[in-house]
């Protein structure tokens, strides 16, 4: 269970130390908020839901505004401060290394709005059930399905945009 929580954290925040902080905060918060857990519900979905909410809090604490985009249920995190970031966004070298490790698909996934990225991770990478993803995203199952559909469309579009870049890099080698 901790592995899945950690993986989601690593996709939300590229820096490992931030992901670790997020996971630790999540488990401590889970212990504090244990009365909100319904017996019989998915424990991992409950934990990831907490993690996601902590991520939004973290963004706000570090001066990153959480903006709603593409309708009421989509949001991106954007850096709003002009100074060099102390937090986890804007680290160009880290972003470059992350991209190298994860390849095009990772780069495309990272470029998605948070809601789209999370739904792809939960449903298509972790293979969670619809209802578990719905619990994390706090939306109905139908919304999860339609969001996943749109996210996959966006991923394919991004991958097709990257393809010519990759081809030109290959030619230069």
């Amino acid at each position, binding site marked *: 269970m901790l592995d899945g929580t950690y993986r989601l954290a690593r996709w939300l925040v590229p820096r490992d130390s931030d992901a670790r902080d997020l996971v630790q905060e999540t*488990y*401590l918060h889970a212990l*504090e908020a244990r009365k909100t857990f319904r*017996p019989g519900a998915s424990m991992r979905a409950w934990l990831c839901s907490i993690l996601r909410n902590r991520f939004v809090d973290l963004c706000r604490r570090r001066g990153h505004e959480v903006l709603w985009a593409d309708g009421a249920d989509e949001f991106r995190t954007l850096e709003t401060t002009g100074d060099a970031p102390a937090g986890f966004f804007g680290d160009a070298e880290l972003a470059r290394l992350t991209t190298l490790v994860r390849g095009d698909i990772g780069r495309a996934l990272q470029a998605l709005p948070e809601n789209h990225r999370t739904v792809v991770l939960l449903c*298509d990478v972790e293979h969670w059930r619809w209802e578990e993803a719905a619990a994390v995203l706090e939306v109905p199952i139908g919304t999860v399905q339609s969001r996943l559909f749109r996210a996959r469309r966006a991923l*394919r579009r991004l*991958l097709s945009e990257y393809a010519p870049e990759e081809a030109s890099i290959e030619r230069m080698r």
Partner: protein
Amino acid sequence: MSACADNSFRIALLVRGELDSAEEALLRAHLAGCATCASELAAEEELSRKLEKLPRLMAPADLKAQVQDRMGVPLARGRVLRMAPRRLVVAGTIVLALVIGAAVTLRSRFAADPLALAAHQAVAERRSLDLQRDLFPGETAGAPALLRELAQRYGLPATTAFPGDAELRLVSVRPGTALGKVSAILIYLDKEARLVTLEILPGNEVQIPPKRTRQVQQFRPVLARVEQCGVVLWKQGGALHVLTAPLDDQELARLFVKVRTHRS
């Protein structure tokens, strides 16, 4: 290129294997004659293949240890005593989920011997439970209800387990994980306040080699010793039972008979 408007979503479901056979047959018939939709299917399948290739990171061992340590602090405090039984299930689940990391390490060491693995896991869990024993007096009343809830939720034949007696008092029940399966852990205290645990997990595929068992009255359990703790393993009702207690072999055998037959 986009698929026929009505089919895009169905193609996505087909790739996920979530269409029923009738819908799938209809869609496949359409795909055979529609290049646009066939191309859509190929693109979706290609995307799924790429997603499957993403690295699956594991949480570092030191992070697991850190989380476990930090989780242990509030659990050791008296305020948890006020938790309702169901909430204890949650707290117990969280803490025990963190023990999974240790279990994975043990599994790699004892991959070829599930009995040795189960014994080591049970003793490791017992050690963790021993640290929380100040919680147990507050849980005693709710233990039977917790046991029923756990047994129902995970289909464990645990409700017929030894319910405790004057010598061995059932003080708590927790969900656990052993051999990669969800288990029920019954926690008892004996007259000398020693912790005794009985872990029950699905065990149909676990084989007990006859040469490793010992005759104890008419039963043949496996007796083992892990870190000075006695462990008894046996199959009963399709479940693997793992009893741990800090007792010598003779006392352990007597305890096994009591727990196995419910004879005080």
